[in-house]
């Protein structure tokens, strides 16, 4: 069976699950969801890989039980470190050993070595390993900090760790907020189920109609990047921004919508991030659950370590209170962004494009803030003017797109090559009318893509003013039906089911 939620077989599987879920005794609903989650994981690929999430849940359960049974700080800490070492150890072996090996080989190559110094591992990583590892580890840390209830039942913990809509691409859960609802009885609620299904249709629209079309343009340029310069690179990069956004946020709409049909509320992961006016705001709106995780379990604990506290004190003494505080925060943020980059994948292109480049943006923005303020006073620019807001949105989108070049390019050197070629003004005029369609889309496909993006933009603007589904709900029955069926048929008819249909996998599933 295809792992993607957009496959026909999966949708049949889901329809059966939903029906059974509301027919069985409510006490057994959570166990049914666990069974389904296990079955889903077994059916979606190499079944043996389920040993990984199962082992992580088992390690977490053992640690949690030790912590629940003692007030001894030393034992509790030992249990925490044991679980963290096990979970992060598995993640490191699966995803980062080859990163280290490739880096060493790369350096050796630069120093003149003819052969590989080290050999990488050929391990098959289980789907969604970065997501479930963080959900489980966060829970263990919360139990250690005594802000989450230690789960007594291993199977309940296993459902939290392996709940099938979430395990592949998040959102990253927090047990203290999202965990206990799994075990409550859920009665059939017509409004919840229809709202959930509506959100799923919206997700399918984003993934199948928009993301898949953007994918064609992106692949055309990025898979043959040496042949392109100037405008086509910018077009393909902007298309990639929308591909990634519609793919990832669309998959979240499906996950959250599906969960809503089960009566479960999963955390939001996106909040129209391309409307952000600066990079910090962008990261509060893009992959929200990762940002929250990093803040709570990396950034705050790091800044509260003895070393950082002492360093902060020294920096304040040396550079004054304000600048010293700022420098300490910048150092902490460096570690934070390095971790965010590494989380995205064992490759320098991720470490830079999704990590350190954003750290550089934020730090530069903070340091240049006084100059911007003086500039605005000098040229009489009102800080809250709409034009300035619009300019900031475009500027932030541009900066984010530079990061996306690294994210999508096949390697760090390819990204650098493409960025250089993108500003090669000598060749910028190569894209004329017909050449634009040579990027893989004929004019009908390009029109469908443009109309679909306009629908996305209109809905995103409406979302700024509250729930669109609630607004549609208040309309008269024929209008409601017309809207939802139009979207459904638009998606069914124009969803991209070409030869690359299986490519409708979620991009973030690989993480």
């Amino acid at each position, binding site marked *: 069976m295809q792992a993607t939620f957009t496959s026909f077989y999966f949708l049949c599987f889901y329809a059966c699950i939903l029906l059974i879920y509301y027919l069985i005794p409510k006490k057994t609903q959570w166990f049914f969801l666990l069974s389904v989650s296990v079955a889903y994981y077994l059916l979606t690929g190499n079944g043996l890989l389920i040993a990984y999430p199962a082992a992580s849940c088992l390690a977490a359960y053992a640690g949690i039980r030790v912590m629940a049974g003692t007030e001894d700080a030393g034992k509790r800490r030992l249990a925490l470190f044991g679980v963290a070492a096990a979970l992060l150890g598995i993640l490191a072996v699966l995803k980062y050993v080859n990163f280290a090996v490739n880096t060493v080989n790369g350096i050796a190559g630069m120093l003149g070595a003819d052969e590989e110094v080290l050999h990488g591992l050929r391990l098959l990583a289980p789907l969604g390993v970065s997501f479930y590892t963080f959900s489980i580890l966060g829970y263990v840390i*919360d139990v250690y*900090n*005594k*802000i989450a209830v230690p789960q007594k039942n291993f199977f309940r913990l296993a459902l939290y760790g392996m709940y099938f809509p979430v395990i592949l691409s998040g959102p990253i859960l927090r047990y203290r907020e999202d965990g206990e609802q799994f075990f409550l009885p859920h009665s059939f609620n017509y409004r919840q189920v229809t709202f959930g299904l509506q959100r799923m249709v919206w997700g399918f629209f984003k993934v199948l109609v928009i993301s898949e079309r953007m994918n064609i343009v992106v692949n055309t340029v990025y898979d043959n990047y040496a042949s392109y310069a100037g405008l086509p690179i910018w077009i393909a990069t902007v298309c990639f921004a929308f591909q990634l956004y519609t793919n990832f946020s669309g998959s979240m709409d499906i996950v959250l919508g599906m969960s809503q049909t089960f009566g479960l509320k999963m955390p939001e992961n996106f909040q129209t991030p391309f409307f952000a006016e600066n990079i*910090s705001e962008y990261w509060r709106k893009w992959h929200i659950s990762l940002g929250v995780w990093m*803040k*709570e379990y990396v*950034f*705050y*604990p790091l*800044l*509260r370590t003895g070393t950082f*506290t002492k360093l*902060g004190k020294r920096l304040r003494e040396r550079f004054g209170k304000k600048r010293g*505080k700022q420098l300490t*925060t910048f150092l902490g*943020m460096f570690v934070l962004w390095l971790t965010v980059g590494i989380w995205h994948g064992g490759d320098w292109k991720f470490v830079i494009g999704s990590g350190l480049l954003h750290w550089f943006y934020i730090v530069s923005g903070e340091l240049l803030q006084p100059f911007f303020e003086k500039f605005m006073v000098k040229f009489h620019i009102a800080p809250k003017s709409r034009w300035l807001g619009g300019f900031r949105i475009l500027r932030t989108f541009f900066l984010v797109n530079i990061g996306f070049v690294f994210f999508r390019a096949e390697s760090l050197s390819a990204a650098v090559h493409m960025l250089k070629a993108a500003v090669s003004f000598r060749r910028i005029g190569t894209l004329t009318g017909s050449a634009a369609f040579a990027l893989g889309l004929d004019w009908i496909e390009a029109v469908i893509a443009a109309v679909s993006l306009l629908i996305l933009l209109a809905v995103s603007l409406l979302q700024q003013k509250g729930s669109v589904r609630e607004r549609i709900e208040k309309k008269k029955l024929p209008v409601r039906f017309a809207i939802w069926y139009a979207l459904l048929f638009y998606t069914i008819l124009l969803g991209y089911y070409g030869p690359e249909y299986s490519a409708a996998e979620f991009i973030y599933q690989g993480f």
Partner: protein
Amino acid sequence: MSREEVFAALNEVFQDVFDDTSIKVKDETTSEDIDGWDSLEHINLIAAVEQEFGMKFSMGQVVTMKNVGEMADIILSQVKD
């Protein structure tokens, strides 16, 4: 230390950290009410409060406290005189 004294001292810390002498914190004050109280400044605020009262928040308290009232309660539970 009375609750009023804790709030008076907290007010000074908040004014100092956020560089705004017009700040007056109440029980129900949250990060929504104060300009600049974002996740980065939160940790600086916590450090400044700890220094002022000579106490330490646990990591759990740092991430779960909902408003200034809860912050004051934690301070009162740790500071005896």
